[in-house]
């Protein structure tokens, strides 16, 4: 998809002023944070499970080629087919080709961040297919022509009123005088509309939370059951997944599943966890007749062996964004690319380039709340810092900022000069603002004083005052 990550500053300015957005985002605390905390508190082993999850994925990343080959072999043995895609374009073409071979018209889709990453819907539409998102949130934003603003709650930026507007505009075959009083009215309407689509779909596309090397299974985790209807009703099931999703065994998948729902929605376990292995078997009464897995690299293999490798442990639970104060302030769209929030800030520069995405890792206070809730213990601030280093080396921040920083660093390395300079500057500031105790405006500090007062300094620097006191005591 096309990125607007380079315009984060402008995106963010609009987002912070958007009252409807903030009304919608205000549900996150009760909806995500409190529920996670309560569920985690009920499992004494949770911290140890996080260590274990980290270790499993570290082992996978170190042996990634072996596990992928083993996964491929098992899928083939089960009667499925694995396709490898280096880039988003290759993945799109593979999926398009399978749809074409299947003679498909309607393509249903379970929620997949990889499908978003490769902008699959646009491509399928452009080639004459009708892709239909079936996750309620994804369906709503597809109708609105928007992108997901959250990796597990794609429509979290919307309120009921927004959804009503969309449904009335798009579902014109339904009575105009129907009422939308509460959430069930929306859910029931979407269920009814999408039920018909499920029945007519020729191909179903899902993502994968895991790929299991031991068995050649792909795993999806949903609460709605849409991903299951997507894959069992059409004749062809296509799984699009990125290469780092592989885990060794059913036991390893299980170990990580113990972390996923608790971290994501604060559930003990999601409603549906589905392991799909090949196409339907002889004698089966239902299930797809063809099973394809498209494995996408798209820049991930290049992150291995770098300080950013640890982002590949991510299990896409969304806990980092659920707890991020920057995400809460700007929402997901401001980040400008598929994966928002702290994980986006750590991952996106690796996938779309630090030139395009350098604001994302910079737009963080390094408060560390994301890392503190990450089930896979990804050191998100550390990885953001890695990208900042790259961005600095590439001189991507504004010349005035760099000049200011360089000047400050030059002085900070010269204590004598620093002492004299700071004494003079602080003396002057105190003289100007001391009586009132603060400044409402200050030249060169607009970024601060546009929004808040600048407290005035007390007058002397501490070291000056300390030296004076020592002198006084000695005298």
């Amino acid at each position, binding site marked *: 998809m096309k990125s607007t990550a380079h315009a984060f500053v402008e995106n963010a300015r609009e987002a912070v002023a958007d009252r409807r957005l903030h009304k919608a985002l205000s549900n996150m605390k009760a909806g995500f944070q409190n529920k996670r905390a309560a569920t985690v508190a009920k499992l004494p082993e949770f911290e140890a499970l996080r260590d274990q999850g980290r270790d499993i994925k570290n082992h996978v990343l170190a042996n990634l080629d072996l596990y992928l080959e083993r996964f491929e072999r098992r899928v083939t043995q089960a009667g499925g087919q694995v396709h490898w895609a280096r880039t988003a374009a290759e993945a799109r073409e593979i999926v398009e080709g399978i749809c074409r071979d299947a003679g498909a018209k309607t393509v249903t889709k379970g929620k997949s961040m990889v499908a978003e990453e490769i902008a699959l819907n646009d491509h399928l539409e452009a080639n004459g297919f009708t892709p239909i998102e079936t996750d309620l949130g994804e369906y709503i934003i597809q109708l609105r022509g928007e992108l997901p603003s959250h990796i597990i709650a794609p429509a979290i930026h919307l309120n009921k009123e927004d959804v009503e507007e969309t449904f009335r505009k798009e579902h014109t075959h339904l009575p105009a005088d129907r009422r939308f009083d509460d959430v069930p009215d929306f859910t029931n309407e979407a269920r009814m509309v999408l039920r018909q689509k499920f029945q007519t779909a020729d191909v179903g596309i899902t993502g994968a939370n895991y790929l299991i090397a031991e068995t050649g299974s792909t795993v999806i985790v949903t609460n709605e059951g849409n991903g299951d209807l997507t894959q069992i009703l059409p004749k062809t099931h296509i799984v699009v997944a990125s290469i780092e999703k592989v885990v060794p065994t059913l036991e390893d998948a299980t170990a990580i599943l113990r972390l996923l729902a608790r971290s994501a929605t604060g559930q003990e376990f999601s409603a549906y966890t589905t392991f799909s292995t090949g196409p339907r078997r002889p004698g089966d009464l239902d299930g797809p007749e063809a099973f394809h897995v498209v494995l996408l690299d798209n820049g991930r293999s290049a992150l291995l062996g770098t300080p950013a490798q640890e982002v590949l442990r991510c299990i896409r639970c969304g806990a980092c964004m659920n707890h991020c104060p920057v995400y809460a302030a700007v929402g997901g769209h401001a980040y400008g690319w598929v994966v928002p929030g702290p994980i986006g800030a750590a991952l996106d520069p690796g996938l779309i380039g630090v030139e395009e995405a350098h604001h994302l890792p910079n737009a963080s206070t*390094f408060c560390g709340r994301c890392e503190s809730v990450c089930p896979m213990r990804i050191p998100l601030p550390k990885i953001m810092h890695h990208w900042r280093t790259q*961005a600095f080396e590439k001189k991507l921040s504004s010349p005035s900022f760099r000049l200011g920083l360089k000047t400050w660093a030059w002085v900070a390395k010269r*204590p004598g000069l*620093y002492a004299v300079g700071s004494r003079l500057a602080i003396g002057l500031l105190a003289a100007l603002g001391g009586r009132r105790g603060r400044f409402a405006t200050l030249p060169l500090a607009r970024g*601060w004083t546009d929004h*808040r007062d600048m*407290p005035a*300094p007390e007058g002397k620097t*501490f070291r000056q005052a300390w030296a004076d006191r020592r002198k006084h005591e000695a005298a």
Partner: protein
Amino acid sequence: MTAAPAADRPSVGLFVTCLVDLYRPTVGFAAVELLEQAGCAVAVPATQTCCGQPAYNAGDVPDTKDIARRVIDTFSAFDYVVAPSGSCAGMIKAHYPRLFEDEPEWQHEALMLAERTHELVSFLVDVRGLADLPGRPAYAGTVTYHDSCSGLRELGVKAQPRALLSQVEGLTLTELPGAEICCGFGGTFCVKYPDVSNKMVEEKTADIADTGADTLLAGDLGCLLNMAGKLKRQGRATRVRHVAEVLAGMTDRPAIGEPRR
């Protein structure tokens, strides 16, 4: 407490932090007072400047390392290095060693320094075992406390300030909802992304106001300047102080952003 002879007292190099040095010397004096009450011999190396966080946060590794080397040299002789800031102490403890991953000798020095470096309040409680406050400070009022991020998550500063505040006569602590959520300061973040920072500090000051506390305390001056600046801009009467000022009983100076008396 009778002061032990100087030789028996651990030597503490006070890492004043650039913000305290420039903006709020009172915090520095409060830190010295508290450290001396805890039986330490305090020195203030005159050649200190800054821990290097502005450069670190900007991704400027070469300048950060230059500054870090200076800090390591300046503070090498002390038993402990103490900063009235979780952010600066966290920088030295958590980040200096990583900076020198490819320079083993400096990394060794950085690790040695990291081991001896502490945030002020956690040093008093965890290292010096301070359970009550020898200065018997008093503070009439209801305070609320913001947990600054680096201190909280990098250094585990959470219970220590509350334990000591409970010893302050007349002081009532009302917990701040969302006390562990960042105030939006973030060093250069607040001027590089002013709109985002502002939204964050607005949320914070709304929570502060909701507590009804008359005073806001925290352990990091950067956060305090940010929150005090916003509270003032909003015309709120909440007084803002560094926790060390209250613990040392040094609250005769105007609070942060208050007019000179």
